[in-house]
């Protein structure tokens, strides 16, 4: 979605400038992205609220018969995801210095960390002794983590797209790097959601 908007916006801006010459309007894409992420956050907020309601109304939580959850792997995964945000920010700083190579390195590392997170999540699903429909806790567990996982996947593909595009010389520069900022914003968002999710699903 961002990608199509991005291209057309760029072309559109150029076209307008050519056709009229009374000026480009400033770039609002990052603002729009922020507004969109606000709406995304509301989906998660709704799901979290539902989870917390189920939890508060139930007498025993998690319902009797739920196996103990392992904390080590998800804990490591959490650390991986959080550190990837900092790694990614280095990439953004690099491009602000017109350092495309540096950006590619840091973004590549972020993508790798994201992939490790997803793999860890997949491993956790695979080794879990409970299924989706076992009880209210397991259902919410899978739906929440799965929905978040989809977002990680989407964020990962944004990063890969940025990497792909950065192979075109001059595509990103210190003055024009919306794709980098947008994917970073998205990644931070996914990160923050995970922290809340980890707290209420695993710790609380």
């Amino acid at each position: 979605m961002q990608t199509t908007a991005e291209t057309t916006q760029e072309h559109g801006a150029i076209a307008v400038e050519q056709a009229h010459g009374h000026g480009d309007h400033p770039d609002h894409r990052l603002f729009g992205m922020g507004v969109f992420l606000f709406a995304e956050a509301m989906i998660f907020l709704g799901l979290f609220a539902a989870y917390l309601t189920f939890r508060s109304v139930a007498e025993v939580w998690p319902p009797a018969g739920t196996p103990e959850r392992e904390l080590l792997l998800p804990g490591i995964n959490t650390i991986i995801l959080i550190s990837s945000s900092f790694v990614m920010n280095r990439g953004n700083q690099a491009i602000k210095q017109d350092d495309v190579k540096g950006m590619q390195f840091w973004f590549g590392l972020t993508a790798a960390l994201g992939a490790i997170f997803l793999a860890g999540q997949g491993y956790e699903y695979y080794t879990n002794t409970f299924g989706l429909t076992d009880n209210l806790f397991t259902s919410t567990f899978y739906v929440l983590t799965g929905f978040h996982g989809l977002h990680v996947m989407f964020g990962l593909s944004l990063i890969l797209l940025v990497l792909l595009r950065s192979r075109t010389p001059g595509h990103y520069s210190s003055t024009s790097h919306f794709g980098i900022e947008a994917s970073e914003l998205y990644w931070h968002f996914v990160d923050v959601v995970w922290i809340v999710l980890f707290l209420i699903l695993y710790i609380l």
Partner: protein
Amino acid sequence: MSVSTLEPTQTPQPPQPKHPERHWKDFFGFSTDHKVIAIQYFVVSFVFYLIAGAMATSIRVELATPDADFLGYENYNGVLTLHGTMMIFLWIVPAGAAFANYLIPLMIGAKDMAFPVLNGLAFWLVPPGGALLLLSLLAETPPSAGWTSYPPLSLMTGQVGQMMWILAVLLLGTSSILGGVNFVTTILKMRIKEMGLYDMPLFCWAMLATSMLILISTPVLAGALILLSFDLLAGTAFFNPTGGGDPIVYQHMFWFYSHPAVYIMILPVFGLISDILPVHARKPIFGYKAIAYSSLAIAFLGNIVWAHHMFTSGTPGWLRMFFMAATMVIAVPTGIKIFSWVATIWGGKLRLNSAMLFAIGFVSMFLVGGLSGVMVASVPFDIHVHDTYFIVAHFHYVLFGGSVFGIYAGIYHWYPKMVGRMLDETWGKVHFALTFVGFNLCFFPMHILGLQGMPRRVVQYDPAFADINRICTIGSIILAVSTLPFLFNAVYCWFWGEKALPNPWNALTLEWQTSSPPIIENFEEEPVLWSGPYDYGIDSEPEEDTRSVADLLAEVKAEM
């Protein structure tokens, strides 16, 4: 901005005019021009209005007698589910988006929306959503748990139809969210330099409030529907008590969207009315800031009153009291609006054309819905009328007497701008008279039905209510007939109506400073903000008013 036509590589015609011409084919494909998208929204949503209206008429024909003898038991619930869903998600919400798309960039002097491609994308989610809903009626078991789709009933009425319903609503909700992103960004970021927030027409304020509501509440509905579809397809039990789930949680999530949805449907219309009344009353809007702020107040309060739909759902007593108080408070900003509108027309020089008739009709019909709204906020009274025809009457006064009257007012007012031709006034007045009479005949008696003991969503009812129901059915048929003069008028005048001047109403907002219909990027040159949106009556000399705003503008420009 229609990029493709601007790019030299894609326009092979050699003589390139300064502004490319609009081609009729633009309206039938993926366009990024906000005006084309707006017309697409208008036409598509109106088609669904006619379909859902036909469903409404069949519901009323069924209810002309106390027995289930027209649609039958099973079909009736399917029809009522789709009637509600379509009227909300495919008529009033997209019709609001249509006005917003058309008017916001013009009103703030922009060339287009902030994200034109996203805008086209948002529109093109609507037709598939609508098609999915229509097709669901053909499924072996159509969705028939009402537009609320409360579990556990919605989990038992058939997977295929219900899942199609969920997917359709998710698509339409996504469209609405994408639209909201666009509206907020456009209003906040794309105004011409001289236009501060308080120079905006009130429609922009209303759309700002609406978009915030969309962004806050629609995602939560998506969350609810995701969980519901897991229950439906994957065998989880979020809302299914047999597996330990809780159907009340769905109700909370559903109404967290669906109460604000009422304001998503009425706030844009508040904005339209605030922009129509001053033009035809030739008087400034009374209390600009009060109206602007009250939109924001309604949007805020609209988010914290959802559980008033659940006063009989087994909610704790303190919760009921909180939501009662919060709901009643909404009467204050709403009251401010109504009083301000009446004060706007008071003392003016009213041009009672079709747009003005519908706008005034809106104020007086919405008043009835507002008064019954305060009544149903009261918990002890709501316990009696909840889920009865009193509620049906109440929300039709808000959504038909309110939203639909306002949408019609907007169409009569801006049709010349959009199409470049005037609508016929005689047919417009016939349309208004039939709508007004049919509407009140159809819906007012329902208040009494509900109070007396008739529940809603029944195909079969106590024969004691047959007489009143027959009156409602007659009203609904008049209402159905009332769309014919409008349809005829709108289609005929599209081709053969009297040509419209750039500013046929002598209005002051920016959309009237360009041609009718506006050129592809709206303005020949960036428009000049030479007056507030509602500065009527500033000119004292009468000859001043015989000149068009365009002439005046030219003069002003010449001096600069």
